[in-house]
């Protein structure tokens, strides 16, 4: 298993994909975090200036800004994980991989471990971007950055965990859908289009909203404990959001289900 893990680390670091994705992740998250901090900070100032207007509590803003690391960044570890598997199918490197380690479950296990760690590192990098740019902007617009608050650091830890789980889900998804193009299209269509619509769509009626909490993106937001999406929640139905640990378990369950199904189907097939 140690040898398989070393091999997977080399696979990941010996091609350019990881740092290209990382650069985009950091840029995208950093820009969005700074934008949100500036926008809401200014908005909050305006609202508090008006007599009798609802107050925008300062403590709510930093988690929203910092959690952009997962709220918009989760698709990057997901894609990294999926590509780690689908590229093996695409370039037929499964052949040398299985020749060097004929026990295929060991290969899959090593991939899950290595990608989860890579996802966690993506999480750290995304936090450096969201906090590194978000906190100064918050301070600039007069909102306490909350970096002296233990809760803020717990949130960051949960961001790292969520990103690790997303990368593992990507690995599972890749084994389930080995076709690289199909895999990427499904990831983008689901995360950028389908799930946002479903989350808004389910949020109006109580029972659909209860189901909607279990969508992967919603579970991820629940795990982290904050998200620009949940905070702007447009729904009218009121359901208790999942606890952070419930969100984490739901997310882990998604990863486990896709990985097990993939392992029992495409991963066992003849390599021709």
């Amino acid at each position: 298993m140690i040898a398989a893990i070393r091999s997977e680390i080399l696979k990941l670091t010996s091609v350019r994909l990881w740092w290209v994705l990382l650069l985009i992740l950091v840029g995208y998250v950093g820009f969005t975090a700074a934008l949100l901090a500036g926008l809401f900070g200014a908005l909050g100032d305006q609202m508090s200036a008006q007599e009798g207007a609802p107050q925008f509590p300062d403590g709510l803003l930093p988690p929203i800004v910092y959690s952009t690391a997962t709220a918009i960044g989760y698709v990057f570890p997901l894609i990294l994980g999926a590509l780690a598997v689908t590229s093996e199918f695409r370039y037929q490197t499964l052949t040398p991989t299985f020749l060097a380690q004929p026990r295929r479950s060991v290969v899959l296990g090593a991939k899950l471990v290595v990608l989860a760690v890579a996802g966690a590192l993506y999480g750290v990098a995304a936090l450096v971007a969201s906090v590194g740019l978000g906190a100064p902007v918050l301070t600039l617009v007069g909102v306490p950055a909350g970096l002296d608050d233990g809760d803020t650091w717990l949130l960051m830890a949960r961001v790292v965990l969520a990103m690790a789980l997303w990368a593992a889900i990507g690995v599972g998804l890749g084994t389930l859908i080995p076709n690289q193009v199909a895999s990427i299209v499904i990831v983008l269509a689901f995360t950028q289009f389908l799930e946002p619509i479903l989350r808004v769509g389910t949020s109006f009626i109580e029972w659909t909203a209860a189901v909607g909490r279990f969508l992967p993106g919603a579970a991820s937001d629940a795990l982290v404990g904050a998200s620009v999406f949940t905070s702007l929640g447009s729904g009218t139905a009121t359901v208790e959001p999942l606890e952070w640990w419930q969100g984490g378990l739901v997310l882990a369950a998604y990863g486990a289900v896709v990985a097990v199904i993939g392992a029992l189907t495409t991963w066992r097939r003849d390599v021709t």
Partner: protein
Amino acid sequence: MPDRTTIEFSGLTKTFGTVKAVSDLSFRVEPGVVTGFLGPNGAGKTTSLRMLLGLVTPTSGTATFGGVAYRDLENPLATVGTALEASSFHPGRSARKHLEVYAAAAGLPPSRIDFVLGLVGLSTYAERRAGGFSMGMRQRLGLASALLGDPGVLVLDEPTNGLDPEGIRWMRGFLRSRAAEGRTVLVSSHVLSEVQQSVDRVIIISRGRSVFEGTLDSLERGGAVRVDSPDRRSLLAALTVAGMETRRTETGLLVTGATPEQIGHLALTAGIPLSLLAAEQSGLEDAFLSLVSTDEATGAAA
């Protein structure tokens, strides 16, 4: 050098849907010689090799290395070195990194990487990405991966494909020297002429079935012999009397059903001087093609 290992195919069969890709294939590949695994494209060579290597699950039968299936080998890369036809490289990964990935997976020392790169003549291209490699360089990188674990068994699928004549000659010498060291070498090809100078034994398959197993000599027996004499008329008469099938060509007589020794002896006893006596070069190819095409004809009729 690991122990001498014999490859054993036993009743190996693979069915894809209703198509029998490989049926009841049984043969042994001995150490110390180069064994050719021949057959036209689509005959089932690659499928057979992939079953041997645990990449494809057989419908029935077994293929083992000294009785041990590939999946059960203690240290597969140190036992069996493989280069399969498909160029299985990530185009964005350098040759050295490619080897590092699989050396790590098999727990092999990194020192082997420079060694095998040098062995196949890729040292100067080690840092280049495999995506830009020519066919010949890909073949060499594939061979380098096969040699990583210093295995006692080499299984190479179409290793001469895409090589220039110089590369083919290099490969020939390479395979011979490996066999001479006591290793087991199995080489597949769909072109007999590319391997006929490097193999000692051949297994020929057609439509998934074994149609010939033995030495090249025994395959050629029954092939044509080209013979000529200043007194061609007497030679023709003597051959005809001896019951040999003879055909007149511009460059002498083409005799089938006799060895050069028999013809030479015949000419000597008849007192006919010979100006030419040679086993026909195309005899081997003819024998190969007739084996394969006869089978195709019966296959089509069935």
